[in-house]
C-alpha cells in the first residue's frame, strides 16, 4: 500500500441513532484516537426498513467509524457485538492505510 501510511483497521458501525452515545463510549474506552460520525443514515437489515423520516429517532440509524490497531478493533467489535444483540446494527472491519500529521505519528 501507499508508502507513508500506517496499517490500521477501519471499524465501521451502523447502529440505531439512540445508541450512538454508547457506541462512542465503547470506542473511547477502547482507547481509540478518535472517530467520525455520519449522523443520519437509513437502511434495511434483519430488523426491517429503518426509514429515518419519523417523528422519533427510534427508527433512525447513525454510522460511526474509528481507525484503530487490530487489538483495539477486536475489543470494540466484541463490545459492540453485545449491544447489537438487542439493537439494530452491524460492524464492518476493513484494512486501511492511514496518514496522520507528523506530530501524531505516535498513535
Amino acid at each position, binding site marked *: 500500500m501507499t508508502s507513508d501510511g500506517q496499517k490500521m483497521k477501519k471499524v465501521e458501525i451502523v447502529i*440505531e441513532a*439512540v*445508541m450512538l452515545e454508547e457506541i462512542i463510549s465503547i470506542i473511547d474506552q477502547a482507547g481509540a484516537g478518535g472517530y467520525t460520525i455520519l449522523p*443520519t443514515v437509513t437502511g434495511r437489515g434483519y430488523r*426491517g426498513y429503518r*426509514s*429515518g*423520516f*419519523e*417523528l*422519533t*429517532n*427510534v*427508527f433512525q440509524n447513525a454510522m460511526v467509524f474509528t481507525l484503530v490497531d487490530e487489538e483495539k478493533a477486536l475489543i470494540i467489535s466484541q463490545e459492540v457485538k*453485545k*449491544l447489537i*444483540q*438487542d*439493537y439494530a446494527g452491524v460492524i464492518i472491519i476493513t484494512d486501511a492505510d492511514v496518514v496522520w500529521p507528523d506530530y501524531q505519528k505516535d498513535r
Partner: protein
Amino acid sequence: MDGNLLTNLVDPPILFFFFGIFARLIKSDLEIPPALTKFFSLYMLMAIGIKGGSGLAESGVSREAVLIIISAIVMATVVPIYSYYILRMRLKNLYDAAAISATYGSVSAITFIASSEFISKLGIPHGGYMAVALVVMESPAIVMAVLLAGMVRSKLALEAKATGSKSNRSLPMKKILHEAFTDGTHLMLIASLLIGVATGMEGKKTMSPFTADIFKGMLAFFLLEMGLSVGSRLREMKEVGVFLLGFGVIMPVINSGVALAIGHFLGFAMGDAYMFMILVASASYIAVPAVVRHAIPEANPSLYFTMALAITFPFNIVFGIPLYYKMVTFVWGA
C-alpha cells in the same frame, strides 16, 4: 353525533392530516424535511407553554388547579399499571406489555392542541394549568413502565437462571430518570410554561403574532407530517395484530371514562374535565418511545410506536374528540 361536532374535521390542519395519510397510501414522494418537523414540534410546545403559562400567571393557582395536577400525576402512574395487566392477558412478550403501558400512561401534545382548538371554538374555556397537567403526565408513565420491566426481568432471570447469556443491557434507573426529565421536547414545554408564567400577559402579547396568529398554519404542516408518518406506519399494521388494534381504540375510551369519573367526583369545571379526559386518553409517540427504547430494549418499537401513532392518535382526532365531548356534556349537562 350531530353535525356541529364533525366541524372538528372540516378544519384545514385536520384535513392536511388526512391528506398526509392519503399521500403515503398512494406512495407519493411528498416529504416534510426532518429539520422542519423538529422545528414545528418545538414550536407547538412553545405555543402551548406560553399560552398556558401566561394564563396561569393571570388566574393564579386555584384549589382546582392543584387537584387537577395531582389527579394527572396519579392517572399517569395508574394507567400503566392496569394497562400492563390487561396486556399481559394476551401478549407473550411482557417487555412489550410494559412498553405499551408507558405510551398509554403518557400523553400526546398534538391531541391536546387539537382538542383545545375544538373546545375553544365551542366557546368553552379551560385553565392554563391544563398545560401543567400535560407536563407532569409525561414522565411518571415512563418510570412505571421501567419498574414493570424490571419486575419482568427479575422474574425471567429467576426462571432462566444459568441460561441467561443475553445479559441485561438496560440502563440504570438514574440514567433513565435523567433522560426522561432532560428530554429536549419535555424541557421545551416546561421552559415555555415557566417563561409564560414569568412574563404573563405582556409576554403573551409580545409573542402572540408568532405563537398564536400563525399557529394554524404551522399546525397544518405538523399534522401533514403526522399524516405522512401514520401513513407509512399503516403498512406495519399486520405486525400489530387484532388484539393490540382493539387495545389501541378501546383503551382510550376506558381511560377517558375513568378521567371523567374523577373529574366529576372532584368537581372540575367542564372544560377542564374535558381536557383531562383528553390527556388521559391520549398516548405518547414522541417522548416515550425515545426513552423507552433505551430503558426497555427488549421491547419491539414497531408495536408501541405504531399503536400510539397510527391507531390511537387518529382514533382520538377523528372519533375521540367529539365522543369525549358527548360524554362530558352528558354528565355535566351542557
